[in-house]
């Protein structure tokens, strides 16, 4: 596109017609539009120690290593012929036992995934096609295979700033578009990946799947960015609330004793289970082996400190190392006695979980309530002060933020480098009383002192929670970190009760729920711990991974598939069987939408079942299972139904809901009711992108920046009519009725489907960053959205510029359906900092949340930022390294977010008054 060819922007065209995309709402006009408003400075400051560690984090690059891969592979090779579960356990234990210890001066809680601050690694036995080194023979082989996952990698964008290593450096290469690897390790990587070539879960899975009808459709769903298939190859576990109960209550030696005892009880016994009864002995043996490996790993830290202490000149540092050593030497074997020991074993538990398997969203759950017994005992006995506890919580913010995840570019485009360490605060106790405690409060304050992305915080909102706690949470939101998000206790509890009732879930147990990943409601349970002879009840995760199965169907894409008879118009692939229907009524269109959608789900489910079945046969997650309540009782891992609750393992995940609703509303109104246009008119307009250049040609992915082609004016009228058609988010029953009809179907049909564990599925409605990944790969849609423009985020956020009637109209639209029927719903709002200034502003924000919650909304979260700051940060990223924003369910550093998502964040309606 040359300068001579540039014509008008969309916003100019709409303004000429007297209709505009309204990107601001509310306010009294007093905001100075020439000044960038900063977020409110509430005067909190981090400890010097936390500041130093945070500074190290800002300087750190995302780094990977072959350390784990080499050790695992070497031991695996040695054990050829051994039973798979035991072979894996021994290889894993060996890998743990040989991890280099990583201890930074000034730390109080130590431990890292690898020998780097932001270290992570892939598990080649799972999938390696996306990270084999360029120049290796395998690189050419995997490229020529043209697998769907690598096709997807080419179609997406990830952030290029911050710690992302996007190009080679002296001494290091860039791998998977983001991670640095030492150059000298490349030959080792080549030898490791050579060994696993043909043996990976991805390759075994694809070989087996290729014999099953629908295989090509499955791959084309990924190629066309209609649905994100093959998640078992990329992130097979996660979106889970971790349970720390066993390490905290028993310690590692105690867990090994449980395994040894259970092994003796069940060895050689079927005990009524002719299919899996004997598997229990292998499970217990395997788990015991892995725990010993983790114990040895901690022992490496003790040995390193034994080496380092005599060499340390600084007396203060030496003393701190000695205290760390004492802590580690204890928790290497025994259950913790103190708050610091509890945090340390919690931390190694967490690291072991995310090292064992590629996992996104291993969330700490209600960590303030889990750690409270040790805090309470230490404070009562004078062993610790609140200042010391606060310092530890501050440091943990940096530690959690440093956890990285080695995944493909396509996965990174969805996760944006986030690992979703979601700490839930508040909620209720078993008997329905408010569960917020002093530690929950301190987690909030630590977030005010140390502005990092992790752990992200969620308030499990209930009317019973103390007002001062809710105001404190609102105060944290105002600082602009994007958390806490709020989840409705009653809605979440109703969901788990409904989904897990057949597994024995009761009301009191439902109150133990928490959030895994960004927004995945997880079943929980209550556990009793004993600290210094005193019993406490703590909440605990109680299920394995959630929302595996059918990852992210692009709802707007299915509208277009109906319109174009099953053909994906971006790629030209005939994705679905042609329906060949005339679609003469809206009802016929809607019926076909559902038919196509269920077809897609059927395909994804079939192959998801195969993939996860293979995963549980080839690489059971043993430490995850050891810590998940139920598994040590039953003697089965989480993928063999070992957990207390297994019916949350598989779900149906959607994205782009609001664009879909708006598209259906446009068709219903303009084609079927008014008769102003035919379906062919719509098709023509979409095929020609309503006369506009593609977003990728413009280099911007928000509607306001799109540019019309010189000859594009012929579509002005249909485009403006589509944009003016009824929209979700303004309390209009026309569009809201479509949403309700969709939800009533979407929340129901998954429950008739069955996972590989023969458990019902359920709906999951979040976007993470898929609204960018899928939106950027979808042509124009009937709501007037232009090709490549990022979808509306979340599931209930209005499309940018369309929520013209304020927050309460938006809430009215969002709450037109029963949100407890879904694992989640998701709502983001962007608020100008001046709209919630001062104590009055804090109260307004808390009241806004309350209004949404009591209306039946499940989730809401906020970006508090001046859009002008985001525009400036896009132009001068080097000046905004520490700027954080809320994307959809997670907070990320602005510089590490892809441009399409940045554009969408800028475009979100800015509330200048609430």
């Amino acid at each position: 596109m040359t300068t001579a060819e540039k014509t008008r922007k969309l916003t100019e065209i709409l303004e000429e017609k007297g209709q505009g995309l309204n990107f601001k709402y509310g306010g009294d006009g007093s905001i100075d539009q020439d000044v960038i408003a900063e977020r409110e400075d509430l005067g909190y400051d981090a400890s010097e120690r936390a500041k130093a560690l945070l500074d190290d984090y800002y300087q750190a690059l995302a780094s990977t290593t072959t350390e784990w891969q080499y050790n695992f592979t070497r031991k695996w090779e040695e054990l050829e012929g051994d039973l798979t579960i035991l072979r894996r356990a021994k290889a894993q234990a060996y890998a743990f036992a040989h991890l280099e210890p990583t201890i930074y001066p000034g730390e109080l809680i130590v431990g890292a995934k690898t020998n780097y601050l932001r270290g992570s690694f892939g598990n080649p036995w799972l999938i390696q096609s996306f990270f084999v080194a360029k120049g290796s023979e395998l690189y050419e082989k995997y490229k020529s295979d043209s697998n769907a996952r690598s096709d997807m990698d080419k179609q997406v964008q990830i952030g290029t700033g911050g710690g992302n290593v996007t190009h080679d450096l002296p001494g290091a290469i860039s791998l998977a578009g983001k991670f640095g690897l030492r150059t000298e390790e490349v030959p080792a990587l080549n030898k490791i990946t050579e060994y696993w070539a043909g043996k990976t879960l991805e390759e075994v899975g694809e070989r087996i799947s290729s014999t099953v009808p629908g295989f090509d459709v499955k791959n084309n769903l990924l190629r066309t960015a209609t649905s994100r298939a093959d998640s078992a190859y990329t992130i097979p576990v996660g979106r889970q609330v971790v349970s720390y109960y066993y390490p905290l209550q028993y310690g590692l030696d105690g867990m090994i004793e449980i395994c040894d005892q259970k092994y003796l009880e069940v060895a050689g016994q079927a005990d009524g289970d002719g299919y899996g009864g004997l598997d229990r002995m292998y499970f217990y043996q395997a788990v015991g082996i892995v725990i010993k490996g983790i114990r040895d790993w901690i022992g490496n830290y003790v040995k390193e400190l034994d080496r380092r202490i005599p060499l340390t000149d600084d007396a203060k540092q030496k003393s701190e190392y000695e205290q760390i050593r004492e802590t580690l030497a204890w928790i290497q074997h025994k259950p913790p006695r103190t708050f610091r020991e509890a945090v340390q074993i919690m931390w190694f538990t967490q690291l072991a979980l995310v090292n064992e398997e590629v996992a996104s969203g291993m969330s700490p759950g209600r960590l303030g309530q889990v750690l409270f017994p040790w805090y309470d005992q230490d404070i009562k006995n004078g062993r610790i002060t609140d200042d010391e506890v606060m310092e530890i919580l501050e440091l943990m913010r940096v530690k959690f933020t440093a956890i990285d995840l080695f995944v493909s570019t396509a996965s990174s485009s969805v996760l944006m480098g986030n690992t979703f360490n979601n700490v839930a605060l508040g909620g209720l106790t078993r008997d329905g009383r408010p569960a917020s405690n002093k530690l929950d409060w301190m987690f909030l304050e630590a977030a005010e002192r140390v502005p990092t992305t992790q752990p992200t915080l969620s308030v499990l909102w209930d009317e019973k929670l103390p007002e001062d706690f809710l105001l404190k949470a609102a105060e944290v939101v105002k600082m602009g970190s994007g958390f806490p998000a709020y989840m409705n206790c009653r809605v979440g509890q109703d969901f788990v009760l409904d989904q897990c009732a057949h597994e024995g879930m009761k009301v009191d147990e439902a109150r133990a729920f928490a959030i895994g990943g960004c927004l995945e409601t997880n079943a929980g349970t209550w556990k009793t711990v004993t600290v210094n002879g005193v019993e406490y009840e703590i909440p605990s995760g109680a299920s394995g991974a959630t929302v595996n199965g059918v990852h992210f169907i692009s709802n707007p894409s299915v509208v277009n598939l109906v319109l174009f008879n099953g053909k994906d118009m971006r790629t030209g692939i005939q994705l679905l069987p042609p329906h060949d229907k005339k679609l003469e009524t809206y009802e016929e269109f809607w019926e076909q939408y559902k038919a196509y959608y269920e077809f897609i789900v059927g395909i994804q489910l079939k192959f998801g079942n195969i993939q996860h079945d293979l995963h549980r046969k080839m690489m059971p997650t043993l430490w995850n299972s050891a810590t998940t309540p139920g598994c040590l009782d039953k003697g089965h891992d989480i993928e063999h139904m070992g957990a207390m609750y297994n019916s949350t393992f598989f779900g149906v995940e959607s994205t782009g809901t609001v664009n879909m609703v708006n598209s259906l509303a446009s068709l219903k109104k303009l084609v079927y009711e008014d008769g102003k246009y035919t379906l062919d008119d719509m098709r023509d307009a979409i095929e020609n992108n309503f006369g506009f250049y593609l977003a990728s040609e413009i280099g911007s992915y928000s509607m306001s920046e799109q540019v019309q082609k010189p000859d594009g004016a012929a579509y002005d009228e249909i485009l403006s009519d589509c944009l003016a058609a009824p929209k979700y988010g303004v309390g209009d029953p026309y569009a809201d009725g479509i949403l309700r009809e969709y939800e009533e179907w979407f929340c129901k049909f998954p429950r008739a489907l069955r996972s590989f564990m023969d458990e019902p599925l359920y709906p999951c409605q979040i976007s993470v960053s898929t609204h960018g990944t899928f939106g950027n790969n979808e042509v124009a849609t009937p709501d007037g959205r232009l090709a490549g423009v990022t979808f509306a985020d979340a599931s209930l956020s209005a499309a940018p510029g369309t929520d013209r009637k304020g927050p309460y109209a938006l809430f009215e639209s969002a709450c037109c359906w029963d949100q407890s029927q879904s694992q989640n719903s998701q709502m983001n709002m962007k608020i100008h900092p001046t709209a919630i200034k001062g104590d009055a502003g804090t109260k307004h924000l808390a009241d806004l949340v309350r209004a949404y919650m009591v209306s039946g909304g499940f989730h809401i979260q906020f970006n508090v930022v001046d859009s002008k700051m985001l525009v400036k940060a896009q132009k001068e990223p080097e000046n905004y390294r520490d700027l954080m924003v809320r994307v959809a369910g997670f907070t990320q550093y602005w510089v590490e977010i892809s441009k399409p998502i940045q554009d969408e964040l800028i475009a979100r309606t800015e509330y200048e008054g609430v």
Partner: protein
Amino acid sequence: MTCQHIDCWNYQAIDVVKGICLKHGGMVDWAGESCPAFVRKPKCETCANFSNPDEDNIGTCTGLSDGSHWVLGSRPATTCEGYRE
């Protein structure tokens, strides 16, 4: 064998290209020249059980239970039970 920061046991890596000097404090580049406080970090290439490295510094390790296996010479051996100088 090189004597750079990355070869020193007083170097705690931050990422692939830099780390912290445990002796003198502060961030240092991986390739910086070592100082009198240099302590060679155990690596496979300094082990008696390591032999025959090729041009990529991939050699043979005979110090572990599997008898013999390829290994990268520059791999840290600080946690290896078979390491012998």
